């Protein structure tokens, strides 16, 4: 039994079948790579888990919680956080504030307590300190007080990771974290992902086109093509799988 169980999930957009009865499981503490050619349905899978899209069928459980009966705004409360392929930061806010919002579910200041500053200051400070520490960890302190708008792509990707970590996730879903990075940067990122997995005891669902990285750090890999699972196994198994090779060759 995996901590995340996806079973027979289907998603249609008009005539396009983005996910076709997809099933897979992720074990707790694993890094699970989710790969596939462009348009295979990887991001769609993320969006279904984070309740942005509604599947036409199937079921998803996370640690015994029925994910499909949870709303997008409460999915973080069962411990699932994510980053976005095309970035979804809040450009008008500072980097630090972006990360602090990541801790929204882990703090309680409400409109009244915050406006009148009754009992909210200690918590504010705690959240700020924690967010700053995450920025230190991701080497982002030099932009901490700058607005997110206008920062380079790679920096923004890391800010997204920091934001997701601020929510103290149990499972982290990373959508193409390595896109736009140089080779050496990718190596650093790979190390980081492994490290946070261990440090924070995370389960990680990783979507990535950078094969070396996926194969290097994943414990388990699920391969999608046209919304279907075409292969599953350890990185070693996957890299030998003819269907996978065909899917990738067929694409390119």
């Amino acid at each position, binding site marked *: 039994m995996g901590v995340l169980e996806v079973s027979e999930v289907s998603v249609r957009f008009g005539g396009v079948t983005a996910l076709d009865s997809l099933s897979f499981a992720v074990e707790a503490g694993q890094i699970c790579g989710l790969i596939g050619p462009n348009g295979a349905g990887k991001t769609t899978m993320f969006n279904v888990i984070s309740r942005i899209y509604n599947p036409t069928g199937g079921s998803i459980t996370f640690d015994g919680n029925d994910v499909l009966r949870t709303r997008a705004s409460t999915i973080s409360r069962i411990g699932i956080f994510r980053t976005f392929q095309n970035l979804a930061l809040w*450009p*008008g806010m500072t980097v630090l504030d972006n990360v602090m919002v990541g801790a929204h579910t882990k703090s309680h200041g409400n409109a009244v307590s915050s406006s009148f500053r009754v009992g909210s200051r200690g918590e504010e400070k705690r959240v700020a300190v924690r967010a700053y520490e995450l920025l230190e960890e991701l080497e982002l302190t030099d932009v901490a007080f700058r*607005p997110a*708008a*206008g920062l380079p792509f790679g920096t923004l990707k890391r800010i997204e990771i920091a934001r997701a970590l601020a929510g103290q996730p149990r499972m982290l879903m990373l959508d193409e974290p390595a896109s736009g990075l140089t080779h050496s940067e990718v190596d650093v990122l790979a190390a980081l992902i492994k490290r946070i997995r261990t440090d924070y005891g995370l389960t990680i669902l990783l979507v990535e086109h950078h094969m070396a990285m996926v194969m290097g750090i994943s414990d388990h890999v699920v391969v999608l093509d046209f919304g279907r699972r075409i292969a599953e196994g350890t990185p070693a198994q996957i890299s030998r799988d003819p269907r996978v090779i065909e899917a990738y060759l067929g694409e390119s």
Partner: protein
Amino acid sequence: MRPTRWKKSVVLGVGAAFVIASCGSSTKAGSTATTVAAGTATTAGAGAATTAAAASAATTAGTSAATAAGTTTGGTTAGSAGGATEGLVNGVYKGIGDFNIDPKKCPADWNDKQGITDKEIDLFVSLPKSGPLAGFGLLADGASSYFKYINDNGGIGGRNIVLDAKDDAYKPDQTKTNVDEALGAKKYAAFMTVLGTANNLAVWDTTNDECMPHLLNGTGAAQWGDVKGHPWTTGMQLDYFTEASLWAKWLAKEHPEAKTVAELTFNNDFGKSYSAGFKYSIKGTGLSVVHQELHEGTAPNLTNQFTTLAATKADVVLLETTGAFCTQAMSEIEKNTTWKPIVIMSGTCGSVAQFFKPLVDQGLTGANTYIIQNFKDVNDPANASDPFIQLYQKTLTAQGLDPKQTTYATGWIYAWFMTEILKDAAGYQGGLTRGNIMLAARSIQETNPLLIAGLTSKMDGMKDAYLTEGGRMAKYTVTDPKALGRFVPSGDLINLEGQLGTYDTVKAAAAGG
């Protein structure tokens, strides 16, 4: 990525809307504006369209034959010569009709000579110069035109009359702001012709507390006869209550066969004022109101009201409403083939172009609708030989203004009264002071030369607080159903001068039924 783009588009949109709105409103106003009875517009309240229509259409200009007019210098009060009895006597201003002013009741810093020097008399008016009713703004230009004529001919004992006009866009809160500022400036002798019922109501407590003469209000509400509660405020127009009284008198005399009356009443002060006036005046006649239909300013049409009204088969129907409702009402009546009552309509809907033209477009005419008129139409060829109208035409042309614009003529009516008040006040004990201006305003005896011949304009202190209380019924007569018709006098002049007394009469009538 910065969220400024949406802000920018919002502002651009708003900014552009502003320019367009400003231009738009001025053009709209430009096409209208003929008025005496500005006050009615306030009461419409059914959105800008109705209000604008009401206001622009409001006219009481008559179409009657020429009369020998009084001259601008005419007019004599009991004691405008040196030995006047009115004026400041023993520290109290004593006027006619028991109207007195004790300056000790005024604020400590009240100045009797404020706004009055040897060279100048400063007056103030707040009225719309922008917005949908901007057309009324010409009233101030008309008044200034008459004052210029007076100033060019010696002024008031060598003093020039200067009228400062400020725009309030017909918004009562803006009127209040303007009036507060004008009061604070401490440079005006008096306010005149503030337009709109709500606008005047918004400020009259303050003007009275400040002992500021607040004269010749540009609205026909009956409140301006409240000489007890608001001694410093006077009106000028034929008020709605009296107008409805004139309807009753005219019916009793000209149509003794008519017995039953149905009312269509705008559900507000304006409509109810007519209704109260009519009911007050039919006591002792054979007339009786058999049904009253109220309508709101938000009513989309009057079809239901007229289904009910028609069922009464009343001999007479009164249209106590204004704006586009007048046109709708006339249309409903004309389309009814079985019910043919005598139709009497508010004088605020007298503009042929505004209210009868849409009927022609529907294949209707509005023929045989009656309204009350009390002022001469300066554009009527029949009045061409009227000496005062000739003076008006000549003076405006010389000043580069268009005399066909009847709002200027309305301005002349008000300015004429104001000039007479100032002249009279100058002759009182103590000379031209604000106290005497107030006394003079409450004791006007001169007949305005633009009133239809035979009518009078008098005030008598505490006894008669209404200036014009007469009129003549006119019938909208159509010869070619495809063209516009004209109002033709019907019946004798009816002059109720002095009969209404004060606002107390109106209040009692409203309370009594």
